[in-house]
């Protein structure tokens, strides 16, 4: 390689390295510290290595209801993902046909992305109180999170459908498919990678949502709320153990989603099935 790279390459590379360090450095420190020995503190040095704080996480009631919050958060995230997928897929398909007021409806839906989350939550909480309803994570909390995930899902579906050639659907109709058969046999299977993406977004956005959930979750906390509370009153590496566990869960969810997209696309791109291998040889 005789080509000299320009100095800008090194400048940007240095900047990128700093960015990565800033992004992952503190988190890695937290993961390391979560393995602190039983007598260690919140900071370095490590006083031995143990799983003590992970055990404390499950057994200690003093730290709060971590397990309960985790279950609620997962349940809520699954619920949010399901609703986001169904609504944004249907809305995305519907928006392909221009109707009177469709542009208005679209911008109206997207506008909730720019509303300050804390106030959306406050508004929902006040409305619930006004109506004499109790706020809880599965009603007011769910609604507050959907104001955040639905516009995102819709935007992703727009991008996905923008690249989807309508002639596939016309071909299906031409070959005698009813509209339901067309959706089931052609549209949904072809959009599946994008739909998984929407589900993934819905899940992760919900799983670590704080601003909108803070005032709408009611008496039982979701995991981010629980962690937020812990940062002010827990002074042991248990906090780090919580961070490590929640990160692993996020990581698992993302790998499953991306893995299934990759699997679908791989199968489409070069997945030669057994029979055709046998047939061509």
């Amino acid at each position, binding site marked *: 390689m005789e080509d000299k790279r320009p100095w800008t390459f090194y400048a940007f590379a240095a900047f990128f390295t700093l960015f990565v360090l800033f992004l992952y450095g503190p988190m890695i420190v937290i993961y390391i510290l979560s393995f602190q020995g039983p007598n260690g503190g919140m900071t370095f040095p490590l006083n031995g290595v143990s799983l003590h704080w992970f055990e404390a996480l499950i057994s200690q009631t003093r730290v709060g209801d971590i397990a309960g919050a985790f279950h609620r958060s997962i349940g809520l995230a699954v619920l949010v993902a399901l609703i986001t997928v169904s609504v944004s897929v249907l809305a995305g398909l519907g928006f392909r046909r221009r109707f009177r007021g469709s542009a208005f409806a679209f911008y109206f839906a997207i506008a909730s992305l720019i509303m300050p989350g804390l106030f959306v939550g406050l508004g929902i909480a006040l409305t619930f109180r006004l109506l004499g309803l109790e706020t809880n994570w599965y009603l007011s909390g769910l609604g507050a999170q959907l104001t955040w995930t639905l516009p995102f899902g819709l935007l992703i579906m727009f991008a996905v459908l923008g690249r989807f050639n309508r*002639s596939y659907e016309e071909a299906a109709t031409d070959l005698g498919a009813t509209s339901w058969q067309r959706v089931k046999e052609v549209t949904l299977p072809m959009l599946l990678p994008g739909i998984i993406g929407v589900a993934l977004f819905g899940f992760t956005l919900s799983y670590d949502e704080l601003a909108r959930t803070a005032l709408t979750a009611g008496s039982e906390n979701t995991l981010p709320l629980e962690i937020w509370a812990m940062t002010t009153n827990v002074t042991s590496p248990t906090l780090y153990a919580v961070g490590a566990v929640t990160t692993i869960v996020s990581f698992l969810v993302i790998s499953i989603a991306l893995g299934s997209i990759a699997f*679908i696309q791989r199968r*489409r791109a070069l997945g030669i099935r057994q029979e055709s291998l046998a*047939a*061509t040889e």
Partner: protein
Amino acid sequence: MANAGGSGEVSVVGVTKRYGETVAVKDLSLTIPHGAYCCLLGPSGCGKTTILRMIAGHETPTRGDIRIGGTSVLGLPQVRRGTAMMFQSYALFPHRSVLDNVAFALKMRGTGLSERHAAARELLAKVQLEKFANRLPPQLSGGQQQRVALARALITNPRVLLLDEPLSALDEYLRLRMRGELRRVQKELGITFIHVTHTQLEAIAVADMVVVMANGHIEQAASARDIFVAPRNAYVTRFVGGQNVLCGKVEGVTDGTAVLVSERGARLAFPVSGRQPARGAELYGSIRRDRIAIEKLPAGSLPPNELNAIVGEVHTIENQGSYVKVTVDFADDEEFVAHVPDDEFFRDPLDIGDRVVARWSASDINLLDDGLNVRPAMPMAAAAS
């Protein structure tokens, strides 16, 4: 495989199609006989694809009727029309195997798995793709995909097959092979094929009937042979190619031959059998590019004073193998091209910039409608201005 759908005669009756303010098709009528291979030919935006899509039922005419086998199919779902469509990029379902793609229509009808797979295999064998049955479409080459699309469209035994630019996704070599293949399949099945294309030679190569379109109406509908040798007007002549458009003002008519003077002063003779164009009227004719003799003019010699001989400079020379395409700078805004047989050309090759005389025989002139249509409607002074 016999077609079960009855007559495949397609009639487009006074059809207009509007998209908002834009008129894609204007009061168009056309009848394509059963079992014909018809090409709709025209530049993009001329309405040819809209016609095809209206016959298929993917668009609805704003006005007019579409009949297949004598009965109106307006409002009928695609399947009940007895049509099948092959899409421009084939639109093969990428998530289904080749076999399942071909069997798709049968699956939609509720045919059992083994039965529909057997039928699909039979069709795949016809297009020599049975060993690719379990592949996915993206794994096939363009030509193979085209054959899968053909098999998929044919499985319903349509009486009319609609092909939207079926060859445009292929490279030159495959395009030439596949168009022969399409023609062979059409003959074998005996059903009506309607093929949309913007490639003149493709239309002439495959079709029985060519419909040349422009701006939402038909310029000429005739046999492929007639479209090539007897184009009706200057538009068709220019679009189809193969002929040069000549134009001049009438000086006089004797014995069914009009003598004209071109813009640059060349004197042309047009046979006008039976017609009596007025003096000063503008007449258009066409002359086949392969019926023109080109001869080098020695330097300093005067242009010949004879009919049907024009003088100009050689503008471009393109060797086409069996003939050489010579463009002569003759009229200001009209290309004048001669196809010179290769052996003749290379006996005494021309060079760009050579002064040449091009000659042809008056009997090879094909009179065009343009001037004749205009003449009765306009006073002579206006036509001559």
